[in-house]
């Protein structure tokens, strides 16, 4: 089972709850930190890193000798990463999404593909938890490419937790692709509700079943719970706005590891999700 932990809004506690969930399971589990613009699950899980390798994206390389300046490469590029100036083609690597269209449509062989490093994948272990994190290099924008590389590391693992990036755009879509369930970590605020609703829209389009964990519960006016009740969205747990939990997290310690009852609660969330996923599978079969 692959469970994504996402939120829409940033800073609601995705990483804390992803790590807490992984820490609470009694079996082997793989945690994929797909927030590649600032991966930080390792701050709570303290893995020993075993391997690190670069992630590349293809970029076009221009050779002017045979070019007829037909301009096809420039016109097929959705991202305007190529420009034709006089008898020369300029390539802007930072804007290239690596789709390969320019090379494909070049009839004179003036464009070839080269690989450009844009980030890395790091693998390690913390007890029963296999930790994989992606890191996008500074100034790069192709987060989905690095996220896909991180996800390939999960192989056929039977329990996978994906710590998603914030938002609802391409990086989140890449992280959510092919997951069995999404745990939405919601914050009880106007922004929290708004961004949760946006995420739910995405999940419905992607046919990903979901449930909600309210984090720092008691901080707001209950609008998230009211919304979930109205919409019939399952609320799986509420983690209170609690000084002890905040203090532990601030020191890089997991509240599940220090307060045993929370391990129990997180295990129950996992088995409830398992039930919902097998129910959904049976329903669609």
């Amino acid at each position, binding site marked *: 089972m692959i469970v994504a932990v996402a939120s829409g809004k940033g800073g609601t506690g995705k990483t804390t709850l992803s790590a807490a969930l992984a820490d609470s399971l009694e079996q082997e589990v793989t945690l994929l930190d797909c927030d590649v613009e600032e991966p930080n699950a390792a701050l709570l899980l303290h893995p020993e890193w075993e391997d690190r390798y670069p992630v590349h994206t293809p970029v076009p390389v221009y050779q002017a000798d045979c070019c007829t300046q037909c301009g096809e490469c420039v016109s097929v590029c959705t*991202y305007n990463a190529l420009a034709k100036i006089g008898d020369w083609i300029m390539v802007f690597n930072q804007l290239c999404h690596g789709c390969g269209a320019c090379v494909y449509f070049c009839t004179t062989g003036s464009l070839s593909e080269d690989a450009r490093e844009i980030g890395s994948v790091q693998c390690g272990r913390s007890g029963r938890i296999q930790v994989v994190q992606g890191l996008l290099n500074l100034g790069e924008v192709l987060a989905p490419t690095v996220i896909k590389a991180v996800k390939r590391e999960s192989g056929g693992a039977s329990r996978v937790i994906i710590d998603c990036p914030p938002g609802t755009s391409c990086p989140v879509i890449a992280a959510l692709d092919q997951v069995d369930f999404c745990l939405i970590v919601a914050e009880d605020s106007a922004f929290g509700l708004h961004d949760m609703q946006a995420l739910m829209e995405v999940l419905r389009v992607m046919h990903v079943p979901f449930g909600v964990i309210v984090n720092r519960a008691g901080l707001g006016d209950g609008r998230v719970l009211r919304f979930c009740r109205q919409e019939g969205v399952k609320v799986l747990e509420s983690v209170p706005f609690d000084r002890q939990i905040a203090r532990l997290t601030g020191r890089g310690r997991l509240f599940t590891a220090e307060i045993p009852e929370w391990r129990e609660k997180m295990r129950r969330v996992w088995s409830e999700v398992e039930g919902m996923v097998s129910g959904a599978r049976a329903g669609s079969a």
Partner: protein
Amino acid sequence: MKLAISAAGTDRQAALDSWFGRCAYFVVCDTETGEVQAVRNEAGEAGGGAGIKAAQIVVETGAGAVVTGNIGPNALEVLQQAGLRSFVAEHGRVEELVDAFKAGRLREIAAPTTGQHGGMRGAGRGGRGR
């Protein structure tokens, strides 16, 4: 010489559009004959790389220089590669800007006046691709 001005409208009275890549039009004026011709900036709707596309549109008009408010690094690189000079203005109408250019009152841009995505006007590129 032809002078391309990023503008909100299509004639001599059009106001300067302060963003190069995502301006509405380029009004191209012949500084000798006073002839004016407007080109719609199709790059304005581009998802990304608007500056690069806009710069190519300007180069194709045959202009030798550009007047705009803000221009990013990629657009500037294209213009420089094509041998165009770029000048900055804060505001004004096309005819006033042509006069200011002829009188040498406009400052030439040597470095980009804004970063990438400068002209997205808060359209959601809030740093982390949300």
